[in-house]
């Protein structure tokens, strides 16, 4: 097991460096320098001033020199400072990370809580009304654009009923609230985003649970269990579910990067201070240090997620371990 993990880890390093190189290249292929995004077509800023700015940020050097410099700093885990406001890229990420984690973990929990029962029940009662209704329901969630649904819910709950705040994570008087008041405030701001992101993300997992449950229910040992006269609950939850959840573990491992990522459109609609907006705005402003830092963290988590999925899989399924 240990050699397996070590081997997997050592494969990851060249992949990670490769990802940074490609990210850097793509970033530099995009037209426009970071210093130009705000100063272009600003008659107050002369052409000479723009050249001076580019030199101050080291943007006058060829891309490979810039990449080598970046790699040198990255080796000592220095991600550099944002071109936009001069703050360390890591600090900017650390600021957004808790908000993103909060939203994504809550919505993942909600998805799990809904998807597993829906999946099991639909599999047990295949082709029933419930099965068909939930299929339609989860696919509506899958196909509906999240931002559109968000706007409708904002109008309904924010304006018509006036029971929920429309956007943001805190009320304006948040800092003056008591602790329970603060919790309630954040909770009320989270209801819409968590519900919508869970609803729109429900389809994948519930369909996985359903199909793997269906497969397991067709196995000989399940039939044997029925033949032995075991109670149905016991068969389903002890014998079938345990095996049916194996692929779900993989999916959860792969969703690790999504925990810190998050949709740009989604966060923009809810004025939610998360990573998705940070990454997108950095790309639009050609803020190379922040783009690279977000890219590296996303790549790292993807690799880590794959690794964790593989390891837990090996752990829960002895057949893989012994191969």
């Amino acid at each position: 097991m240990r050699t397996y993990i070590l081997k997997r880890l050592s494969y990851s390093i060249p992949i990670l460096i490769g990802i940074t190189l490609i990210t850097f290249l793509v970033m530099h292929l995009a037209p426009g320098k970071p210093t130009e995004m705000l100063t272009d077509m600003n008659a107050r800023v002369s052409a000479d001033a723009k050249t001076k700015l580019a030199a101050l940020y080291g943007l006058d050097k060829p891309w490979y020199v810039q990449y080598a410099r970046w790699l040198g700093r990255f080796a000592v885990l220095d991600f550099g400072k944002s071109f936009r406001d001069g703050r360390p890229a890591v600090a900017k990420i650390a600021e957004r990370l808790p908000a993103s984690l909060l939203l994504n973990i809550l919505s993942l929990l909600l998805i799990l809580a809904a998807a597993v029962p829906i999946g099991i029940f639909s599999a047990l009662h295949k082709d029933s009304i419930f099965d068909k209704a939930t299929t339609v329901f989860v696919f509506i969630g899958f196909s509906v654009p999240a931002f559109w649904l968000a706007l409708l819910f904002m109008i309904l709950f924010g304006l018509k009923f006036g029971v929920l705040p429309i956007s943001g994570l805190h009320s304006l008087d948040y800092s003056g609230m008591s602790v329970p008041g603060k919790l309630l405030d954040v909770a009320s701001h989270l209801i819409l985003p968590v519900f919508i992101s869970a609803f729109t993300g429900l389809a994948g997992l519930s369909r996985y649970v359903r199909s793997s449950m269906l497969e397991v229910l067709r196995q000989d040992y399940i039939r044997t269990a029925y033949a032995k006269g075991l109670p149905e609950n016991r068969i389903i939850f002890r014998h079938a579910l345990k095996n049916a959840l194996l692929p779900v573990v993989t999916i959860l491992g792969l969703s690790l990067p999504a925990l810190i990522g998050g949709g740009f459109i989604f966060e923009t609609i809810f004025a939610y201070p998360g990573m998705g907006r940070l990454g997108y705005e950095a790309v639009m402003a050609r803020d190379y240090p922040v783009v690279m830092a977000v890219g590296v963290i996303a790549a790292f988590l993807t690799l880590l997620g794959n690794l964790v999925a593989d390891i837990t899989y090996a752990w829960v399924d002895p057949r893989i371990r012994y191969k």
Partner: protein
Amino acid sequence: MKSKTCFYCALILLSMFPACRKVPARDYSDRGTGAPVSGDIYVAASIGDASYLNPVLATDSSSGDINALVFNGLVKYNRDLKLVGDLAESWRVLEGGRKIIFKLRENVRWHDGQPFTAADVEFTYEKLIDPSVKTPYGSDYLLIQNLKVTGPYTVEVTYKQPFAPALESWSMGMLPKHLFSSGDFNTNPYNRKPVGTGPFKFREWVTDEKIVLDANPDYFEGKPYVSRYIYRIIPDQSVQFLEMRRESIDELGLTPDEWRAYPEFFRNYNKFRYPSFSYVYLGFNLRLPLFADKRFRQAVAFAIKKKDIIDGVLLGMGRSATGPFPPQSWAYDPGVKDTEYNPERSLKLLGELGYAKKDAEGYLEKDGRPLEFTVITNQGNKMRELTAEILQAQLKAVGIKVNIRVIEWSSFIHQFIDKRSFEAVLLGWSVSRDPDQYSIWNSSQTREGQYNFISYKNSEVDSLLDEGRRTFDQHKREAVYRRLHKIIADDLPYIFLYYPESLPCVHKRFKGVEVAPAGIGWNFYKWWVPGSEQKYTVE
């Protein structure tokens, strides 16, 4: 039986909802005739977060909004767009404009209690011209020969040559020397917790959520009535509109279609409209023979009906443009005639140019080649795209084929504008309050990256631009720029299409909001809310 119970439960649940219909309709009918009182919070909304709360480093409009409330320049524009003293009590212009002597206000204090003196002005100037400082605004200050502090409250600025717009450049926010003198200027922590001299003091900045400012009780023009200012970051325009309908923001810049929305949406808001300091134009690449001929440019102008564009794109919320100065500027010459919509004259001119025959599609042709050109514009500006489409239809009516290309901003600038590889361009300029547009019209400003990208060349315009920069007397300057307006309008290097309007709405409880040539907001520190209408309490 069971389903019946469910049905009743649902019915009861549904009937509960209208009960939570909050916000009792409040009455904001106070006319604001009483004596102003302090209190309440003003909540503004912005699409983007600020970057540097340091006027020397900031380039984005969000930072600019906050910096304008926290910092002061030596001079500022008043309600009528005249330059008046801000931190400077008065100034004198000597030696035909080469020298400006500022007399500073004496008992102004920084928000941390330290006195503001001439040393701070000198320090700000040094940073503006320091090559290691990441400021894009250096060029105006590089024209200065030297800046001398001649007393604790007097500053003497000598220019290499007289430069009239220099006065406006001193509206740059002044920085406190005592906080910035040590450490790296570009990454100084005070770039995120600014200390200025302005009407509002910095309180907190929650990244990507809000920036909070408090009224400065020691402001030299008197403490603002509004106790707190909150700048909320709401990155989506439609969500901003919903927040406005919920009355959780007090101010919103509207788009024309939002402005024309149902009146009940604005029950508790006052809407304002006034021309913004900008114009939208169709520019021609004058290096190309087709556009170098003035008759062709005139033919295009005669074919354009600006009113249709303003009605169609701006829903009437704009004015037809006659030249490079907006109508509220003193440089605007009201005597300049707008281009006339006259398709017959357009056709006649095109005929003179040899375009007489029409092809199967109805486009004019000469020597077997159809008369066509391509208009490029930048992506992400719906109004410009719509304008281009209307132009396309209008020019088709006289037989000119127009192709439209919408290009992503960076490529648009660097592959097309900078490389001069375009035929016509649909763009807009935001112009400064000072009418100096040297960088846009002077024939020396045609290098890559400079702003006379249409390669306009007119020696009279060049000399007027120089004269405008040398002349300090307001009346003489006015004559110079009005002449410039006339010549450029006649020459048609651009077809000036329209002046868009600013369309803000402000919550009705705020009194003292007044539209002036400078728009609203010029007297923001005098806005107030009557006690009975105050919404928030500030501890």
